[in-house]
Structures are given as structure tokens and as C-alpha cells.
């Protein structure tokens, strides 16, 4: 994947952006928002502030707490929204498991981003509801 056309095509396939038209996808697909990490590189560090919201374009990442793997994230998954929305330090580490490419929405721009694309906000909300449901089911 090497050009903006491809970035739009990649985003179009993701559930998160399924309701957006082409012009909206082009507005989101800012090549300067693309970040690349080598396998083994950390993307997020527990205890750090000032983070952003990330959508995985390519590759896999693991969520770990004190070295224990909690979750594995794949293409189309997103992370970083909780510490950004709550403006609190990160509670876990996220590390690239393979070469990883992500789309970054910087923390200070997330609110405006979500308000500009309420369909994306709705899909994030559905995902968060599922995660909460899983946690509640696990506890009961």
C-alpha cells in the first residue's frame, strides 16, 4: 500500500467507516496521519499522557499489562479512545507484534473528529457496548 487512493480503499473496508461516503473518507485519509512501527516497537506506554486515537491499517498489536497479554488487535481495530476521552494516562502497553501501520487522530482533535462524523461515533459506541457486555458476562 503506497498511495492515498489505497488509504481510502483500506478505510472503506473497515466497519468503523462503513457509513461514510468517498469525500468523507478522503477527508479522513490524511497521509500525514499515517504512522508506521517496526515489530516489537511500542505504540503506547502505560502511565503516559497526551495520547491519541488509533485505527490499525495493517498488522497486529498486543495489549499488555505488566508483561501479560490481555488482548490482540488486528486490522480495523481501534485503540486509545478511553484515555483520550477521559484525559487520563494510559492503563496498558500496546506493542506492535508485526510491522504495523496505523491512522492517528491526535487526542486534541478527537472530539471535533467524532462530532464531525457522528456515524463513526455511533459505531465506536456499539463496539464499546459489546466490550462492556463481555466484561459483564464474564463477571456474572
Amino acid at each position, binding site marked *: 500500500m503506497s498511495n492515498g487512493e489505497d488509504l481510502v480503499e483500506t478505510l472503506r473496508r473497515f466497519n468503523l467507516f462503513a457509513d461514510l461516503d468517498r*469525500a468523507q473518507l*478522503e477527508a479522513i485519509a490524511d497521509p500525514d496521519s499515517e504512522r508506521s512501527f517496526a515489530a516489537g516497537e*511500542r505504540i503506547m506506554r502505560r*502511565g503516559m499522557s*497526551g495520547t491519541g486515537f488509533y485505527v490499525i491499517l495493517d498488522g497486529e498489536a498486543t495489549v499488555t499489562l505488566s508483561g501479560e497479554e490481555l488482548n490482540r488487535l488486528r486490522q480495523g481495530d481501534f485503540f486509545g479512545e478511553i484515555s483520550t476521552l477521559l484525559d487520563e494516562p494510559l492503563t496498558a502497553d500496546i506493542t506492535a507484534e508485526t510491522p504495523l*501501520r496505523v491512522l492517528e487522530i*491526535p487526542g486534541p482533535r478527537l472530539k471535533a473528529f467524532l462530532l464531525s462524523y457522528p456515524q463513526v461515533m455511533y459505531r465506536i459506541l456499539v463496539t464499546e457496548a459489546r466490550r462492556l457486555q463481555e466484561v459483564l458476562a464474564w463477571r456474572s
Partner: protein
Amino acid sequence: MAVLEKPFPPGEYPVVVVGSGPGGLQTAYALSRLGVEHAVISQDDSPGGMFRKWPIYQRLLSWTKPDAPHDRTSREYEWYDHNSLIADEPELRATVAAEMDRNYMVPSCAEMSRGLAAFAERGGVHVRYDCRWESTRQEEGGYVLVTSDGEYRCRAVVFALGVTDPWKSPIPGIEAVPHYAETGAPREFQGKSVLIIGKRNSGFELADGLEPWARQIFLVSPRPVQTAVLSIATVRVRYFEPLEDASWGGGTFALDAAVERIERTENGGYRLDAAGTTRPGPITLEADVAIAATGFRTPIQDLRELGLATVADGRIPALSPYWESTTLPGVYFAGNTMQGAAGLRKNGVGSASGTVSGFRYNARLLAQTIAKQLGHKREWRMLGRDEIVPYLVSELRAGPEIWTQKGYLVRVVYPDGATGILPLAHFLDHCPRGSIGVTIEMNAEGAIYPVTYVRAGEEIEERELPTHHLNDFGGGEYRDALESLV
């Protein structure tokens, strides 16, 4: 005049630096001072070739203040001069500042070129000019660079090529539109309507330069101008007049729209069809001339075939925090391609690696890293227990590395008292327990404040210190905060 023999004939060198712009010169200087044997080759015939072509209409965007609170030959002065290269010797410092005519705070291309040439000459930075890198082979233990003068074998190669290849975004019909790099003199646009594809620095540079001549100017791209970011960015001078004109309805338009196609019209002009983004709806524009101000890319030639990973539409190599390719070990980049290592981007604030002010410090670190890999021993400055807090206070007040590379570079003190500059990402992931780091950071609102980092166990303890109305981080509360870390 006698013809001097060209330095660095083809052959085997531990390191080869490609390029003679500020990134190449700074890296070569730093390698020399560390005693690392290397060759420097360049396709240009003198230092800083890019500054003879671009920017087209305007001066550079980064400031150099000939007078400042610190003496021009001091290390602390570097923060006030974002264009000169850095050196240990006073006579090599502030070479651009010495050229400034004081009519503007930012240098002209000629002032920049003269400053670079003075650095290369006085610093004895030798370059094999008119030697063009043509292709690359990977061999066991290193690389072979095939050049117009012959083959160079090396263990490590530093490409300081700039982000200098004109690049067009993949829009149907864009091939008929000339690139920014081909733009002629402003008077050629007198009385014409001008369509500029792109709303970044180069697009607004053209709009600003053409406003006194053109009849109408349309700037078009999908994303809105980030006015909140511009308010704290030095590049905003280029945006002022066109944006003011646009907001007053004076004939300049900055449109947020995804371009669907561009076509030539029968009368020799251009027609553009687009879909509005910020304000949805179809947009059709006609203009006499069109310019693609869609940016530049690093001229990586055949490195992609060797497996070089890239970011930003394939325009820039993806780099580690130490500016090594994430996929080609031993391949490093210097100069403004160093922006391919994004850093932490805390609060969405990027590094200064895309400008001389930031990448001159990166180049020094890069040279140290390469020296270490080649078996040279790094000499650290050692601090005694009682020296640590006063030293860190003085660095928070005026340390040019952390002031310039906010949030990318960190001043570190190791448990044994050794101190140096590192990429913050490297420090956070690899420093031993008990290491202390201090940085200057900036938030999205433009507030400047110190941040301290301590590796206490597995975790990093991050602490933001308060801002100060004079940015003087030398008072009691800062000393106390540092004291509590030691």
C-alpha cells in the same frame, strides 16, 4: 586555478553519506569529530543545492534572530537560530545568523546557502561533488552504492536526500497539471484565475506570492486548513494573507473538497470537479491555469525494491527513533527525511525533525549511534551527585536540544551520573531503572512546560511541571521537583 583532486574516490568505507544539504553536512561533520571514517558524495556541485531552487517565491519559514539573550557563539544561542548547523567550535556556529540582512526574521535562500557554504568551508567538511548515486545492492555485511563515479561499499549508509522529488497525488487528470516545482515568475499570472491543488505550505506560498498578480485564486484539497495548529506554528506567515482574503471574500477561495477529476478545457484552461467535504455538495471550478501543490517525496530510487518501508503515501521512509529504516538494517536517513520517525506526538504535537532546527541535533545523535555500532566508544559527560540538579535546571532553561526538539529528544541522566541526549521513545523503552529524563514539551494550546520522566520499575513515572510566564524554569519549584527525582 589548479584542479583539485576529488575527495573520497570509489571504494570501501565504513560509512557513506549521500547528500550535501544541511543534513548531509551535519552528519559528515559529526562523524568526523567522532573519528569515524566515511565518504560523502553528492550529485550537486556545491552545498545546499535545494536552496537554489526552492522555496520559489519566498524566504525560508524558520527564524534566525541575529541578536538574542545569549551570545551568538554559545550553545544556548542555537535555540534562537533555527537555520545554522551546530558545531563545537565557536567559529563554525551561527553561520546563517552572520549572513542575515535583518530585514526579515527568516533568511532568504541566498543567505541560507551562504551560511551552509561557510560551515562546510570553515569546518573542513569534504564532499565528492558531481557524483550521482544511481543504484543500490545489498551484500553480506552492508551495501554497495553504484554511482556515476564508481562503486562504494559500506556497512552503513546515510541518505541525506531531502524530501525533494516533486510528487502529485493520484487524482484523475493530474498529469496535465504542472507541479509547484515548475511554477514560473508571478507576473506570468497577471490577470489570470489560478487553481491550486493543495492547501499546505507550498500551496499557500504560491497563493501569497500570486495574490498581487492573479485575478482569482482557488485553493482546493479535502482537509480544512488546521488553523488551531497554525496559530502556534512558525509557518503561519504564508497563510495569513490568503486566508484573510478568503474570509473577506476578496477573490481567494480556500475550499475543502475531494477532487474527482481535472480536465483541460477547449480554451486552454482547466476544469475541476470535486465533492465538498466540510460543506458537502458538488463543486465545479474553471480556471486559466492550474498548479499541483501536492508536495514532495524523498528520492529513494531503488530502495523500495530492496524492501524499504514508507509512510505518507509512500513519500517518506518509515524510520526507527534513531532514524534507521524499520525494514533495512544499516540504512539511515538524515536531513528532513528524519520526519519519517514520528516520535511520541504527545498531544498531537510533532517533532522538529522536518526542519534544520531539529534534524541538526538528530544528525549528531545518528553519528554517535553509527560510531557505537562500528565499535567506537562513546564518551559521556559525567555528573557528580551535587551537579545533577543544577545541570538539569540549566538544561530546562536553555538546553537547545530539548527546547528545539520538544517531546522528541530528552536530556537523560543515567544512575551512574552519565548524561546525554536521546530520543524520548528510546529512553522510555530501554533505559535502566533509576534513569532520569527531562524534556520541554508543548501542548495543543501552545503552552510550554518541562516534563520529567523516571524509570522507577517496569513503569515510567511522567510528571508535567507548571508553565512559567517568562519560560524561566530555574525557580524553586522546578529545582524541588528535580531534587525529588535524584
